[in-house]
């Protein structure tokens, strides 16, 4: 669901097809019958944007099914490995009690200093918390912060430990998570699914039965999703809903199980791990923010550290990160330079930035590896770019972004005069991937080093060259500044030039291996002593590590594990641990402690992955020389728990980090070591997934009075360049999804300029059903005009039965779809489909809603 894997991840789709040859069943739930559906055992049509209703229906079906209630495996997994038994604050009110909203809903007011957050509301999550016993006595966090305690910061972390959560392992307590979720999904029946999703009831039940049959001790099922689950105003909740279902089915932390995020670009995973994201710093730590209690280093640690999970080590990750940023200038006395670190003011994501840009609040933009002129509400985006003083475009070709000022549709139709645009645009020709050294991090969190295979043509430079030389020039420019705001930048350590005698791959190119060494980390006193893993990180500045999750990928000066290419021998079960390196700690299945039962035995022989070998003789502790008792976690993968921590080990009463968890709590990054069915913290839009309609929808929400998510984002509300259709607006009666084709790539810079790919999909088209074509008098290949409140585009009609009409809420709803790869540059050209999309999005991650909105279609 939420992915068209065969078309958009064809290379990875090799493995589902291999599984199919081995007898696996493939199910594709999608608004279109795609190339993925074509090779699936079952295709189920679904109205775009209704996935939570479908998944919620599966949850409701599963927990009432005979199999789930009869097979003790499911209860054993759910009671012990999830928070099903945990009791929630009795003040909590569910969407069932409040017609579509949770307790804690409040209004959101945009702050004057950055009024581009777009939130329509906000939740106070106080009532979503676990019911807890009294907190253990000890030093108070506030006092420790006031007297600048640490390093070490252990006392600070310990002071954050809450009282023990109350539980009911019988799952009968009315406020326990299981009863809350049972109530929450009780109206998500197969009949309701059919009404809301347009999916035939028999097909829905077939999916539920196939999943149940293929889950349990001896079998597992996996879900694969991609951007069709993220690009919604509740995308994070869709994915969470799937995780909830998979936890109930015992399909997490086990081989052949899980919720697989299929990521798009070759290194898009890397770009969030070592992030280009505004809201996190390396390794998914939250970016210091002016809106959170992040005033000082210790305030940040107190706000962000989860004391009873592996995240209890956050002070070590953070201090090692600051040492990497500021080098010798970062000392315990100056809190390792924390005060120099930039803080965010709010939502600085893509759309928020363009909304600010449209109001003249952004002076310049460096645009590398993206083509915003063809993205999200394209005409508004181009309007925003015309407000810039300067813009840098670094790309393989003169993209639409580089040429919008003289070739954009607004300029061509005369609405905008070239002479009125004041932006100065700089174009830098860019290398391709095969023309430099570096690493990819793929969808499996696996880093693979690649070497330069060919020289770049002309004066093309790498992105590392660009940023390296920009940084060096900026450091020079600010070197003499005495302004306090510049001291952070002046203290940044920037040392990526190749060593003397080492020839750079291009003049001025940094040494890519040096960057990977910095990311892996080393002993501060001797950078040649690399860190072997994040267990070595310290919170006193003695270790330096840019990104803790990557620590261990380069464990010694001469051991770049990301360059390994050694597969397991054929026919031997294994995880190919010597092929590349996967974070964390080269582990291939996260939370894999869940692949064994409470006692550490595999759930079944067939699904063996890691297990406890009680007879294993451990060597003495290398540091203390103390005897280590027998027993070790062994198996095909790197175990995701303390390697010698017995399954029956008890939590240490005074313990922090992993010591606060028992040997039977697999979800070590969660504060209670459990998989979260109910999410008390971390999400801004509710602890349980709830069906809402997309921001633009042809129908009313059948399940609740609350039409759409009460806290999602609408940027530039009321502005003429972000007009929105009302619910059921007869001017825009059809549901539209945008998507990608195998033959093209994203905004087209890597495909529309290539003759071999352009001839395979030469022109923009709209896929529409035969019924709609008949109603509108549209024949195959006719030109049609597609209109949304934001604009219109022209495309050729591809009339097909692979998409069509659905019965939703008693109405016949036509579904249409358009690939969005096109623009006016390149060999294969076409209108910008994103001129139809809007600036609305998800409140957690600020992604836009491009997978479900409304439009009209007419013959041109």
């Amino acid at each position: 669901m939420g992915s068209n894997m065969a078309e958009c991840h064809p290379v990875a789709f090799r493995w589902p097809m291999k599984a199919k040859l081995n007898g696996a069943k493939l199910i594709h739930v999608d608004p279109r019958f795609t190339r993925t559906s074509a090779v699936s055992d079952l295709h189920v049509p679904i109205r775009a944007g209704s996935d939570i209703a479908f998944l919620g229906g599966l949850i409701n079906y599963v927990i009432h099914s005979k199999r789930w209630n009869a097979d003790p495996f499911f209860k054993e997994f759910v009671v012990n490995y999830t928070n099903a038994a945990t009791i929630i604050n009795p003040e909590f009110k569910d969407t069932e009690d409040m017609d579509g909203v949770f307790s804690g809903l409040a209004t959101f007011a945009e702050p004057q200093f950055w009024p581009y957050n777009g939130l329509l509301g906000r939740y106070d999550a106080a009532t979503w918390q676990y019911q807890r016993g009294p907190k253990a006595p000890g030093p108070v966090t506030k006092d420790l912060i006031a007297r600048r305690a640490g390093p070490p910061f252990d006392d600070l972390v310990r002071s954050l430990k809450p009282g023990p959560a109350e539980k009911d392992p019988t799952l009968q307590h009315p406020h326990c998570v299981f009863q809350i979720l049972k109530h929450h999904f009780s109206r998500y029946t197969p009949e309701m699914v059919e009404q809301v999703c347009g999916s035939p009831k028999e097909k829905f039940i077939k999916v539920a039965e196939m999943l149940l049959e293929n889950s349990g001790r001896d079998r597992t099922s996996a879900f694969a999703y991609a951007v069709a689950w993220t690009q919604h105003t509740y995308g994070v909740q869709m994915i969470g809903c799937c995780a909830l279902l998979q936890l109930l089915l015992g399909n997490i932390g086990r081989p052949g199980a899980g919720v697989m995020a299929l990521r798009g670009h070759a290194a898009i995973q890397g770009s969030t791990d070592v992030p280009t994201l505004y809201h996190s710093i390396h390794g998914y730590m939250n970016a210091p923010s002016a809106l959170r209690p992040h005033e000082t280093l210790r305030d940040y640690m107190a706000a962000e550290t989860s004391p009873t999970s592996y995240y209890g080590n956050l002070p070590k990750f953070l201090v090692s990160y600051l040492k990497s940023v500021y080098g010798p200038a970062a000392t315990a006395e100056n809190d390792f330079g924390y005060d120099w670190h930039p803080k965010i003011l709010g939502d600085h994501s893509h759309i928020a930035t363009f909304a600010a840009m449209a109001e003249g609040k952004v002076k310049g933009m460096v645009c590398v590896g993206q083509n915003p002129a063809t993205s999200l509400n394209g005409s508004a985006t181009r309007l925003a770019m015309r407000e810039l003083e300067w813009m840098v475009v670094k790309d393989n070709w003169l993209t639409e972004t580089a040429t919008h000022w003289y070739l954009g549709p607004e300029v061509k139709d005369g609405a905008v005069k070239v002479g009125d645009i004041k932006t100065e645009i700089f174009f830098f020709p860019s290398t391709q991937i095969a023309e430099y050294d570096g690493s990819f991090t793929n969808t499996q969190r696996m880093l693979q080093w690649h070497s330069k295979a060919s020289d770049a043509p002309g004066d093309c430079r790498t992105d590392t060259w660009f940023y390296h030389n920009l940084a060096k020039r900026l450091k020079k420019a600010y070197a003499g500044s005495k302004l306090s705001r510049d001291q952070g930048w002046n203290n940044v350590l920037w040392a990526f030039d190749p060593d003397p005698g080492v020839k750079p791959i291009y003049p001025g190119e940094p040494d890519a291996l040096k960057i990977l060494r910095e990311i892996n980390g080393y002993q501060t006193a001797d950078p040649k002593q690399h860190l072997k893993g994040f267990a070595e990180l310290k919170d006193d500045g003695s270790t330096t590590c840019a990104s803790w999750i990557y620590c261990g990928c380069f464990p010694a000066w001469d051991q770049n594990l990301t360059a390994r290419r050694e597969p397991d021998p054929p026919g031997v079960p294994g995880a190919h641990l010597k092929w590349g390196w996967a974070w964390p700690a080269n582990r291939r299945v996260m939370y894999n402690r869940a692949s064994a039962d409470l006692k550490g035995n595999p759930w079944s022989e067939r699904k063996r992955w890691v297990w406890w070998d009680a007879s294993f003789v451990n060597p003495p502790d290398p540091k203390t020389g103390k005897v280590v008792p027998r027993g070790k976690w062994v198996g095909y993968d790197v175990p995701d728990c303390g390697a010698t921590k017995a399954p029956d080990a008890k939590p240490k009463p005074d313990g922090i980090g992993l010591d606060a968890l028992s040997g039977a709590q697999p979800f070590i990054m969660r504060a209670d070591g459990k998989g979260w069915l109910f999410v008390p913290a971390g999400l801004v839009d509710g602890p349980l997934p709830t069906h809402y309609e997309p921001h633009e929808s042809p129908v009313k929400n059948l399940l609740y009075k609350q039409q759409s998510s009460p806290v999602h984002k609408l940027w530039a509300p009321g502005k003429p360049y972000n007009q929105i259709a009302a619910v059921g607006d007869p001017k825009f009666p059809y549901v539209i999804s945008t998507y990608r084709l195998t033959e093209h790539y994203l905004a087209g810079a890597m495909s529309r300029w290539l003759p071999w790919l352009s001839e395979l999909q030469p022109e923009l088209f709209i896929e529409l059903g035969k019924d709609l074509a008949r109603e509108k008098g549209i024949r195959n290949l006719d030109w049609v005009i597609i209109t949304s409140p934001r604009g219109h585009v022209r495309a050729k009609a591809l009339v097909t039965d692979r998409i069509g009409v659905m019965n939703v809420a008693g109405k016949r709803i036509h579904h249409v779809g358009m690939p969005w790869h096109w623009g006016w540059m390149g060999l294969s050209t076409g209108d910008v489909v994103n001129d139809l999309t809007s600036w609305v999005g998800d409140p957690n991650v600020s992604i836009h809603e491009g997978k479900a909105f409304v439009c009209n279609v007419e013959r041109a």
Partner: protein
Amino acid sequence: MPEAMGFFTDTTVCIGCKACEVACKEWNQLPAENGGIRELSGDSYDNTRRLDGIHWRHVRFIEQFSGPYNGRWLMMSDVCKHCVQAGCIEVCPTGAIIRTEFDTVVIQSDVCNGCRACISACPFGVIDINAVAGTAQKCTLCYDRLKVGLEPACAKACPTDSIQFGPITELRARAQKRKDQLRAQGVEAQLYGADPQGPLGGLNSFYLLVDEPEVYGLPRNPKLPSRNLKQSTSFSVASAAVLGVLALVGLRKRRMDEQPPSLS
């Protein structure tokens, strides 16, 4: 001499990604039609439409639906069949078309005079003139790659192993097994061109299909051009010459006549 090599294309795992088309063009340095600037065909996701002198691989898309979402979408990567009895070799006047040591059929571009005889002789419509070279061209089964022990570019690029390359005898055994597996699942699978006793002595590029051959644009009973010779030459060619030719062809025809009428 190495054993007979070829392709087994299992259409049931084809995902229509066209990686084969691009890999073929890249390895063989074939141009895109009109530099890549073309019009949408309107025929499902197929925009190259056929095999010809610059398209040596072609993925066919067949939509079989009886209403919205109700049906199936068949995909097949098509290529030269490298017939054991190849019509193109038979008619080539210059000897440009040869049978290689891998039992594949290759047009030698430097010997071809562009007479087009092979184009009409091919029962599958595989061959056409490559306008850049001015000669008849088609898949060489990557003869240059085979010579150095590499598999053909298309098979190498195919992510799902829909295109499998190997010794024909091995491929036939694998294909039979796959057909049996599908039949056991209730799929009407059939092999096309896998039978050495079938038309043209079997195809060294053969297919697993789930519908009749015609659905995929494949002739049910492909014929050699020689079967028409008697008719077409009786009006105009001197009888001695006709008899001479017929005598030659007769040797082949006898083998053909012993074969069952259909491939399917």
